[in-house]
C-alpha cells in the first residue's frame, strides 16, 4: 500500500540486536496533497505504516497490528526536508507474532518511537 508508492526502501544495515532500514519518501505522493494542502507533512499513521512495512520486509510476512502499545511522535516529518529517513527495528520474531520496538531517526533527530505487537497474517 505505502511501500514503493509513498516511500521506497533504499537498503538496510544489520547491527547488534537491531536492523536499520534506509527509506526515501516520495514528496509527490497524493497523500501530501491532502495532509496538508500547501504544507506537506507525513501523517503519523503513515509513519507507523512505514515501520510496519519494514518489519514485514524483515520477517517475510504481512502483519496485523493488533496491539499498538505506545507510539510517540516527537518531530514532524516533512517530505522535502526529511526525505531520507532511518527506520531502526528491534524485533522479537516468534511463530505467529512479532514484538516490535522501533524508531524513525535521521542523524541527531528522532521523529518517533513505537512499541507494538503484531500478528502474522495467513494469506492464501
Amino acid at each position, binding site marked *: *500500500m*505505502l511501500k514503493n508508492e509513498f516511500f521506497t526502501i533504499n537498503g538496510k544495515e544489520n547491527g547488534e540486536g537491531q536492523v536499520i532500514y534506509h527509506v526515501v519518501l516520495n514528496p509527490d505522493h*497524493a*497523500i501530501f*496533497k*491532502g*495532509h*496538508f*494542502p500547501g*504544507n506537506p*507533512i507525513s*501523517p*503519523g*499513521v*503513515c509513519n*507507523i*505504516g512505514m515501520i*510496519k512495512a519494514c518489519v514485514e520486509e524483515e520477517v517475510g510476512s504481512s502483519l*496485523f*497490528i*493488533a*496491539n*499498538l*502499545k*505506545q*507510539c*510517540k*511522535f516527537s518531530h*514532524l516529518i516533512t517530505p522535502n526536508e526529511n526525505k531520507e529517513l532511518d527506520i531502526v527495528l528491534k524485533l522479537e520474531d516468534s511463530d505467529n507474532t512479532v514484538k516490535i520496538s522501533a524508531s524513525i531517526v535521521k542523524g541527531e533527530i528522532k521523529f518517533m518511537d513505537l512499541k507494538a505487537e503484531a500478528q502474522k497474517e495467513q494469506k492464501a
Partner: protein
Amino acid sequence: MLQGEEIKQLIPQREPIMMIDTFYGATEKTGKSALTVLADNVFCEDGQLREMGMIEHIAQTCAAYNGVKNKQNNGAESKPKLGYIGEIKKCQVVRLPRVGEQLVTEVVVTAEVMNVTLMEATTKIGEETVASCQIKLFEED
C-alpha cells in the same frame, strides 16, 4: 450533523486522506463521527481498511471535535487549525473493517491543556467494538 464536503469546515485534512464522512456532533467533552469504507480508500488493501486508516479515522474524529470547539471559541467562520498526533497509547485493533462497512467512532476528552487534547476513542461497526485507543492531539495556534 455534517456530511461529505461539509466536514471540511471542521478538519484540515483533504482528499485523499479524509477519513470521516459524517460528523454527528460534539458535546462539552465528546464527539462522534462515521466513515463508510470505500474500495478506493487510500488505506484499503484487499477489500479491507488497514490499521493506519482506522487510527487516522480516530484522529480525525478528535480533530473534528477540536474544530467544533474552535468555531465556538473563535466564530463560525474560523478555519480548522492544523493538528498532529502527539501520542497513541493502548491501541487495540480487534479486526479490520471491510469495504461497505460503516465505522462509528466516539471520543471522550479526558484532559485538555492549552493546545493539547487527550482523548479516549472507541470505534464500532454496529454493536461490535473493532478498535479502541488513547490519543494525544496537538493543535497549532
